[in-house]
Each structure stands twice: as structure tokens, then as C-alpha cells.
């Protein structure tokens, strides 16, 4: 099955809201945007909002956006848009009835025997990218991936190093974040290599947009790239505990970001994100595995199909710590929900626990789960041939069977998804394998990819440009005092391998 460019849903999406409920939530959102308003810590943005009819309190940095402007900007944002990859065969169309899956990042890697977290090495970071490049259901890469950083890299260099690794070892579409002006280097690197990127504007719920997020928005949009506007609320903490109220605030935030993007450059390609999770009321941490996320995402998917703007669903982070029953349940609920309710993108592959750990073994397992959902989304083909009335007539009742039919030889391959890691053996066969589990199969596939998959390399001049931008970033952050002399010495030590930058 050709899943490289996303999954196509061939049936109507799940509806969890009535039309009246959609309109009620929309009215509530408009009311919040006009009455409560949003906090924006950026004078240039405040002036831009003001010039277009918003009520702006410059001292309080509060912007109140009128309904007419909201609806005008929603109309200007494309309902779907191309996301060009370094390899044109992997270019995506984001929006419509397509679901594209991406990498779910982790702060650290895990030891795949003890499952305890530890910092990834440079080689592990690059190897994880190579595995993700090889997996057909990884359609694009999200920011900070696969790891938030790796051994030797000062934290301020995590973003530029992440993008460099992904550009070097993958030809898929790339998304970038922002921190300490990292988007400046991302834009420079993308332009120098000749690729497009998806930038990020991330809200600080409730209803606040800090300076660095706005700066990133201006830079990405003015560079002509597409923008992902991300919420990030926790229900019961930074949003209402009620799901409807948390749809209103998430929508208010991402709509305000979308309005800003359209005011900077009308027609900007925007992907908005419903990044909502309930709070674990015992610890204060997000309950990323909660089923409430799926219902929130399903409702938001319905709302944003109504608005006609693509929506990214809450990253599929599990609360589980190992790839076990809990992990598979939490991930399966989320990806299946995105598939059937009309999510356009979902950060999915590789997260072992929350946003804290990532591992390529998990990415391989997730590729199988994603493939199953991709198959489900293709739905049921109903045609004269697939109905097979003539075949049924020919086979007739028992002792007839379909195994020798040419129809079977053609159609089973069209209908069945063949998992690469799920065990479908009989008991005797399973015992004969030494009782291998899906993890054993995943390890085998991961090792096979690492041995054989050679990502299309950058040209020598592109490689020079990537390294030039990295050097400029290093110098910039050292000048800013964000890299100490000791850190820089250690960082340089880790770059002395003959196989730099790959290990």
C-alpha cells in the first residue's frame, strides 16, 4: 500500500457534535476573542492587530479581535496546502481527507532492556533519524526530533542540530520549533539547502503569546514558509476541566495565531494544532494517555473541517513507560481517532513515554500500528469486481471454497495489511521461534534498516551550507553567553569522530 504521502480517508468522518453544538462553540470562541481577548507580548504584533480593527490595550498587551476579522482571516487561510519534501516523491498535501503522521519527540532515549531514560549519543540521534526516514508511515518530521538534544550538544544548539540531522539523513518534509532565535538558523539552513519548512507559533495557555513565539511567527511567515499554530493546554490547569470550554480556549488561541499570520501575509499556509490533555490531578502532569484527548481531538477535527483549515491532533504520547499493553492501547486510540474523525496530522512515531523518551524500536512498532490505521482509512471498495457475485456463484455452498480462485489471489493482497512486527503464529510455531514477541521482530527490523538503509545524502555544497549555519549558530550562542567555554570545548571534542556528523 502506498502510504508514503499520507493516508486517505475514503468515508465520511466521525461526527461527535451536532451542528448546533458546533455553532455554539464557535460563538463562545468569538466571544472570548472579543470580550476576554488574548495577551500578546510583542509591540509590532499589537500595532498590526490594531491597524486591522482590533481593540488593543498596549499597557496590558491585551488584544480583542472582532468576529469580522476572525472570519475574514479564516477564509484567507488555505483549506489544504502542499508541504514540499527534499524528495519530491515525498511531498505531502496537508488538509482535506488526508492524515499525515510525523515523529513524536523525546527528551532522551531509553535503554531498550531496562527502559530507563538516558541521554542519546550523536550516533543514536542520527541512527534514529535514519530509521524514521526508512519507515513508510512516517510522513514528515516534527520539531525537536527525534531527541531534544544529544550528548555534547549545549541545550541552545539542540534545535539547529536536530534540523541538521534530519536534513542530512532524511528526504522527508521538516517542521521546526523556536527557542533563543533558533528559527533564524532554521530559515537560513532551509534556504541554503533549498527546502521548505513548517515553522511554529506556540501559545502559552491560557490565552497568552510570548515574545519569542511572535518573533518566530513573523520570521517564518515573512520568509514565505508555512506555519503551525500550537495550543498546549492542560484541562483543569491551563484550560477548563470541561471539554467544551477547553475547545473554546484552544480554538481562540490558534485562531488568534492564524489571524496574526494572515495579517502578516494574507494566504499564509497555516496548520493549527489542538494540543490538549487532561491534567493528572494527583501530580499536575499532563495525562497524555487519557481517552479524553481523543474526544477533544474528534470535536476539534469536526470544528476545523467546518472552518476549512487543516488541524494537527494532540501528539500521541503514551503515559506508559515501556512498549506494553498500556502503550499500545493509548497509541491505538489516538491514531485511530485521528484517522476516522478527520485529523490532518498527528505526531505519532517513537515516543516511549510522554515527551520524555523516544526510541527507534518504538518507531518500528508504531509504523505497524499506523499501517493498520492507514488500511482502515481506505475503507471498503465496493465495485462489481469486489462484490464478486460471479465468484460466489461459481464457488457455491460447501464443499466450495475461495482459496484457489484468481479473485482471491488478487484481492487478498489489496485488502489485507501485513504487519511486520505483530505475531500471527500458531502456538507450536511460536514456541519453535523461542517465543518471540513483537519487540523481537521490531528489533530485527530496526537492525535491518540500520544495516541497509542509506538515506539520500546532501550534495557536498548543501553539506557545507548546513555546517556553515551550525557554525554561525554556535558563534551566536557563545556570544550570547548561552554556551560556556567548557561546554564548547566538550562540544568540539564530540565532533572529532572521523564519521562526523553521523557519530
Amino acid at each position, binding site marked *: 500500500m502506498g502510504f508514503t504521502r499520507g493516508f486517505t480517508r475514503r468515508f465520511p468522518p466521525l461526527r461527535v457534535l451536532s451542528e448546533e453544538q458546533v455553532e455554539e462553540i464557535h460563538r463562545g470562541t468569538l466571544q472570548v476573542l472579543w470580550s476576554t481577548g488574548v495577551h500578546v507580548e510583542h509591540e509590532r504584533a499589537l500595532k498590526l492587530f490594531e491597524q486591522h480593527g482590533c481593540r488593543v490595550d498596549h499597557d496590558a498587551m491585551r488584544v480583542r479581535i472582532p468576529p469580522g476579522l476572525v472570519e475574514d482571516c479564516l477564509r484567507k487561510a488555505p483549506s489544504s496546502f502542499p508541504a514540499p519534501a527534499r524528495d519530491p516523491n515525498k511531498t505531502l498535501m496537508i488538509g482535506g481527507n488526508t492524515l499525515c503522521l510525523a515523529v513524536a519527540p523525546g*527528551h532522551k532515549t531509553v535503554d531498550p532492556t531496562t527502559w530507563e531514560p538516558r541521554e542519546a549519543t550523536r550516533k543514536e540521534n542520527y541512527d534514529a533519524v535514519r530509521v524514521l526516514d526508512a519507515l513508510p508511515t512516517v510522513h514528515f518530521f516534527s520539531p525537536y526530533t527525534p531527541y*531534544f*538534544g544529544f550528548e555534547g550538544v549545549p*541545550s*541552545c544548539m*539542540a534545535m539547529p542540530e536536530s534540523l541538521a540531522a534530519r536534513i542530512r539523513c532524511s528526504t522527508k518534509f521538516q517542521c521546526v520549533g523556536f*527557542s*533563543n532565535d533558533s528559527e533564524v538558523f532554521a530559515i537560513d539552513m532551509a534556504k541554503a539547502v533549498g527546502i521548505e519548512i513548517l515553522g511554529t507559533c506556540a501559545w*502559552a495557555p491560557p490565552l*497568552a503569546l*510570548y515574545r*519569542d513565539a511572535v518573533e518566530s511567527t513573523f520570521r517564518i511567515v515573512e520568509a514565505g514558509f508555512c506555519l503551525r499554530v500550537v495550543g498546549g493546554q*492542560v484541562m*483543569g*490547569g*491551563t484550560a477548563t*476541566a470541561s471539554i467544551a470550554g477547553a475547545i473554546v480556549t484552544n480554538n481562540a488561541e490558534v485562531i488568534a495565531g492564524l489571524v496574526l499570520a494572515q495579517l502578516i501575509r494574507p494566504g499564509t499556509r497555516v496548520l493549527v494544532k489542538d494540543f490538549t490533555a487532561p*491534567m493528572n*490531578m*494527583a*501530580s*499536575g*502532569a499532563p495525562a497524555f494517555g487519557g481517552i479524553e484527548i481523543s474526544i477533544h481531538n474528534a470535536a476539534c477535527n469536526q470544528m476545523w473541517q467546518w472552518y476549512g483549515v487543516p488541524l494537527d491532533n494532540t501528539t500521541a504520547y503514551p503515559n506508559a513507560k515501556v512498549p506494553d499493553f498500556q502503550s499500545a492501547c493509548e497509541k491505538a486510540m489516538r491514531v485511530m481517532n485521528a484517522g476516522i474523525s478527520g485529523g490532518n496530522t498527528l505526531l505519532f512515531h517513537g515516543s516511549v513515554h510522554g515527551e*520524555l523518551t523516544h526510541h527507534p524500536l518504538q518507531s518500528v512498532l508504531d509504523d505497524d500500528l499506523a499501517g493498520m490505521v492507514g488500511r482502515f482509512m481506505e475503507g471498503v471498495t465496493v465495485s462489481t469486481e469486489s462484490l464478486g457475485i460471479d465468484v460466489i456463484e461459481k464457488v457455491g455452498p460447501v464443499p466450495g471454497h475461495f482459496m484457489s480462485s484468481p479473485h482471491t489471489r488478487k484481492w487478498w493482497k489489496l485488502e489485507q495489511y501485513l504487519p511486520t512486527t505483530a505475531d500471527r503464529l500458531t502456538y507450536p510455531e511460536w514456541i519453535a521461534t523461542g517465543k518471540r514477541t513483537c519487540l523481537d521482530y521490531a528489533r530485527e527490523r530496526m537492525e535491518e534498516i540500520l544495516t541497509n538503509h542509506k538515506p539520500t545524502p546532501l550534495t557536498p555544497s548543501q553539506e557545507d551550507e548546513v555546517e556553515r549555519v551550525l557554525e554561525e549558530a554556535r558563534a551566536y550562542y557563545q556570544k550570547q553567553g*548561552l554556551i560556556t567555554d567548557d561546554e564548547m570545548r566538550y562540544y568540539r571534542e564530540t565532533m572529532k569522530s572521523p564519521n562526523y556528523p553521523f557519530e
Partner: protein
Amino acid sequence: MSSDILANLKQAILDYDPDAAAEWATKGVEQGINPAEMLAAMTDAIRRIGDGFNCGDLFLPDLVGGADAMGAATPIIQEEVRRLGAKTDSTGTVVIGTVFGDIHTIGKTMVATLLQAEGFIVHDVGINVTADEFIESVRTHNPDILAMSALMTMTATEQRKVIERLKDEGLRDSVKIMVGGGALTQEFADSIGADGYDPTAPGAAKLARRLLGR
């Protein structure tokens, strides 16, 4: 009458009712009740809520609700303490905040509340706090402990910056420093010269007592 007011003040905290807490604190001041007794009644209530939270009977909204109620009454009583020039018992004083560049509030608020339950006077200086603002707070409140939260890898290094600034200003030895946050480890806390780290909010509150030997 005095015992009724103290009981009602305590109950207002247990009911998570800031209006009632402020009302009973005001009445207590009007009736001339010893402010130390009123603070003790509230601490007793927030400690019960904290104990309930720690054993899983109560949850975060209860903890923060109790802290809000206590926060409504505390300034009224503190004002009376200042007017009388009275002394109050406390475990110690803490300045707490989330570092610059980081706007995560939940973990910091949990620790602040549980510190109150441990009998600390807590000055919560909020989120996105610059090194200069931390320095200023240390000068203003002269705390026993400075507690800094940073959820993200990118902002954890800001804790190091604050500690370096405290050294530059000659304030480092006047205060114990606790750090916490999702991205932190004991190794990181050691590397930046913090005095203490704990991965959980209840653990952080106990750590504060240990740091002061109380």
C-alpha cells in the same frame, strides 16, 4: 468567640472559600485575636489538605483551592502582625518562581502550596522570572530558601545563571537553593551548584525542611 473565629477561619480554608477566609481573618483582627494563632489555624488547615493530597484522598484542585483561600486571608493577618510588631513562628521563608523563558506554573504552585503546609512563609514571584528579579526578591524578602522551577531543557540553564548572579552579588551564601522541574536530574542540580533537588512536589517540601535542619 475567639475559638469560634479561629474554627471558622480554619473551616474556610478546608472549604476552599477565599471570601470566607478573608471575612474571618478580618473579624479576627477586629476582635483582637493573636495573629500568630490565626496563622497557626490556617497552617493546620492547609497541612490537613496537604496530607490528604499526599495520601491520594485529595487532588490538585483541592490543594490549590486551599492555597487560594489561605492567600486571601494571609495579607490581612500579616498586616496586623506588622502593626503590632509581633513575632510569628514559621518553619522558614521561601522565595519561589519559574525561571525566565519558562511559563510553566503548575509544578511551582504545587511546591509553593506544600511548603505552606510545612509551615513556611512563601513568596511566590510567579513565572518567567529573570535573574535580576530573583536577585531583587532575595534582597527584599531575605529568604532562607530560593526555589526555582524550570520545566524545559532549554530553560533549565537559566537556573545556573541565577546562581552565578547570586555569587556575583555576594548573596549566594545567604540562601539555600532548591531546583526542580521535569527536565532536571540530580546530576544537573549538582552541576549548577544547587543545594537540593527533588523530582516530586511533596519531596521538595520535605527537602526544604531538611535543608534548614528543621
